[in-house]
């Protein structure tokens, strides 16, 4: 266990990285299927079926990344887990109710009598909205260090809206990739309508985080860090421009570049995520508890790490298998 030096240093770091990775994968993967739910009211009846077909085989596994993330938080940083979740008691409850509603609606909308279908579609939309909004709200509260003041509440409401729009954007780019015809054209239009959510969301977080924390300000605006970090916002800006150009030309006649908006959005999410991770390190509860203070006993972390090193590649492997099996345009979902 002394292979890499003091395990009390590198183990918490390794788990913070794993936690970050799970959250990032979750935000991208469940982000697109939550986004599809957020876009539901804009689609007609048949389009709704196609939209569900595009996410049907994936949503369950996508949500499992949330369970893994919360599991790692709970396992590796128990005291932070308690502090964060009790502080976010009500938004967590709203999110859970949302997840329940949308998860069961997938099944009920097609198994319940046809006359109930519209109601389950509405439950799917409402559940997706509740989940996206509450996650955005929690993100805002987290950035604000879990302090409750009129300003932090207002900021969290803003991040709630922006994250929801950002989810709808990545959902729309997913639909560009997975659908064709009228729905694909609609998805391009939705993407154009949603991209501002990503821009303003990234902007708001980038402006607000250094302003509320002197520590974060110093991390970004001191030399030479400022120049080393400059590629992050520059690349994000360039991607947004490219996305806008691509969206104006899509869909193409031979469906080329249908993958581009989704791929570019993933990169954008990754960049944004790294920016935030850099800001908050080494804190797990912003400016209160560091990952080293919150970490579990090294012997417990070690036994999980061993398992993780074996199991995580397998998970990634069969996740890739599932996406390969259901690659291409979404087709009718059937049990046959």
């Amino acid at each position, binding site marked *: 266990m002394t292979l890499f030096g003091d395990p009390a240093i590198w183990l918490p770091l390794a788990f913070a990285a794993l936690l970050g990775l799970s959250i990032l994968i979750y935000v991208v993967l469940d982000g697109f299927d939550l986004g599809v739910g957020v876009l539901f009211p804009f689609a007609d009846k048949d389009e709704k079926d196609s939209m569900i077909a595009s996410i049907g085989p*994936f949503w369950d596994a996508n949500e499992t990344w949330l369970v893994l993330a919360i599991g790692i938080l*709970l396992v590796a940083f128990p005291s932070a887990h308690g502090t964060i979740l009790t502080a976010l008691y009500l938004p967590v*409850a709203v999110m859970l109710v949302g997840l329940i509603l949308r998860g069961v609606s997938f099944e009920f909308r097609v198994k319940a009598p046809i006359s109930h279908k519209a109601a389950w579609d509405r439950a799917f939309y409402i559940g997706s909205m509740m989940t996206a909004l509450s996650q955005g709200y929690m993100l805002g509260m987290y950035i604000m260090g879990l302090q409750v003041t009129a300003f932090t509440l207002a900021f969290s409401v803003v991040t709630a809206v922006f994250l929801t729009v950002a989810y709808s954007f990545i959902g729309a780019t997913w639909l560009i990739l997975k659908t064709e015809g009228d729905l694909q054209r609609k998805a391009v239009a939705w993407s154009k309508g949603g991209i501002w959510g990503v821009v303003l969301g990234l902007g708001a977080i980038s402006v607000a985080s250094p302003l509320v924390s002197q520590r974060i300000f110093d991390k970004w605006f001191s030399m030479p860090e400022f120049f080393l970090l400059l590629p992050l916002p520059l690349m994000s800006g360039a991607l947004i421009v490219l996305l806008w150009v691509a969206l104006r030309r899509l869909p193409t006649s031979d469906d080329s570049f249908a993958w581009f908006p989704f791929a570019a959005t993933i990169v954008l999410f990754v960049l944004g995520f790294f920016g935030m991770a850099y800001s908050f390190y080494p804190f797990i509860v912003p400016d209160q508890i560091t990952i080293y203070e919150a970490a579990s006993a090294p012997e417990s972390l070690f036994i999980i790490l061993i398992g993780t090193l074996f199991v995580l590649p397998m998970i990634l492997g069969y996740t890739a298998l599932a996406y390969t099996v259901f690659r291409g345009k979404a087709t009718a979902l*059937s*049990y*046959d």
Partner: protein
Amino acid sequence: MDTLILSRIQFGANISFHILFPTITIALGWVLLFFKLRFAGTGDQKWLEAYRFWVKVFALSFAMGVVSGITMSFQFGTNWPGFMESVGNIAGPLLAYEVMTAFFLEAVFLGIMLFGMSKVPGWLHTLSTFLVAFGTTMSAFWILVLNSWMHTPAGFEMRDGVAFATDWWAIIFNPSMPYRLVHMLLASGLTVAFLLAGLSAFRWLIGDRSDGVRATIKTGMTIGAILIPLQILAGDFHGLNTLEHQPQKVAAMEGNWETGPNVPLVLFAIPNEETRSNDFEIAIPNGASLILKHSPDGVVPGLNDFVAEDGTVQHPPVAPVFFSFRIMVATGMAMLLLSWTAVFLMARKRRGVEGLPKPMLWAMVPMAFSGWVATLAGWYTTEIGRQPWLVQGVLTTEAAVADVPAPMVASTLIVYLVIYAALLSAYIGVLFYLARKATKGEPIGPRMPVAEEAAVTVAAE
């Protein structure tokens, strides 16, 4: 009501709702694999018919289980932070292994199992079905390891109020784990057996005479008839294990107040904690001594041993444990009676389902949910029976609860209860709706206007 009791009710409601669905999916996964292999082996359409109907029930149950499970993993943090702070070093790795070895496996391969039949080779589809069944069972294994450890903790040491693992083998194979695991897996098998038979009996009664229905009534009753004696045996062993490690729980189950020999088996009573005795008791002399100690003058522990000198009660509330236990046993007896009679009547003159009298088929319909009743009653017995401890002898429930204002817990509790009630009725309603549709021979799923039918993408059934 205070935060503690509200949080307990909330977690209890949550986990009660949740367990209904894994109880179905754990065994139903294996039953689906069985249907699939039977079809592959015999080419008989009835097995494919059975697979197609029950895979829908599986998908629905699975979704219900997933979403209610996510809720629980968050409640550890929102309502019970003391649990992870105190025993997180033990509980954490166990939960992590559950997520990594079970959740992902079942979630990913479920997609292929449900929607991939025409997209992947047959062997990969069968393998996916196997991996989903295996994943649900692994999930049950890890969660029961953790739950058993909370009843019979082992392989750890306490330093400054925090548990540290010293022996993972002892933690995983803690004293009550094998008993609890077997008891729960059998419970799942029985739940599915009676659900299979009950829902199929309903189809039979409304006129479905297909071979698929015959096959599932037979399969259900046969599985039930085989598993119920095994379950009674496993339950007895589990009880003896509990007697060794948590005597106060057995004392509450038996409604026995004073430690001593020749303890009667109480069939019915109303335990009274005020007078510390039973009202309206009906009992068989020496019964409890015989069952628990295999001798009429065997000494059986009583509840009065678990009251501290200053009068603090250190045993669980008696009445809920006492009654839950009796409900579980009575349901098990009803299962035994129904399944054995049914199997006997079906085997007689080889008449199959036609050999069953109508009232018996009617009895199967409500018994479709007997597994739920028994499972819940059993869990209430063991979990309430652990109180006032959260982790036996290590951490009290009271010490683990979050400092969240009571009105806040009350508000979320009400929301959860409303949603659970709505979803449960929708779930049962849809089961019977699917059964009626299958009986009418209609395709189960949304109907499309004829003109569009060819062009339109049909969503998952």
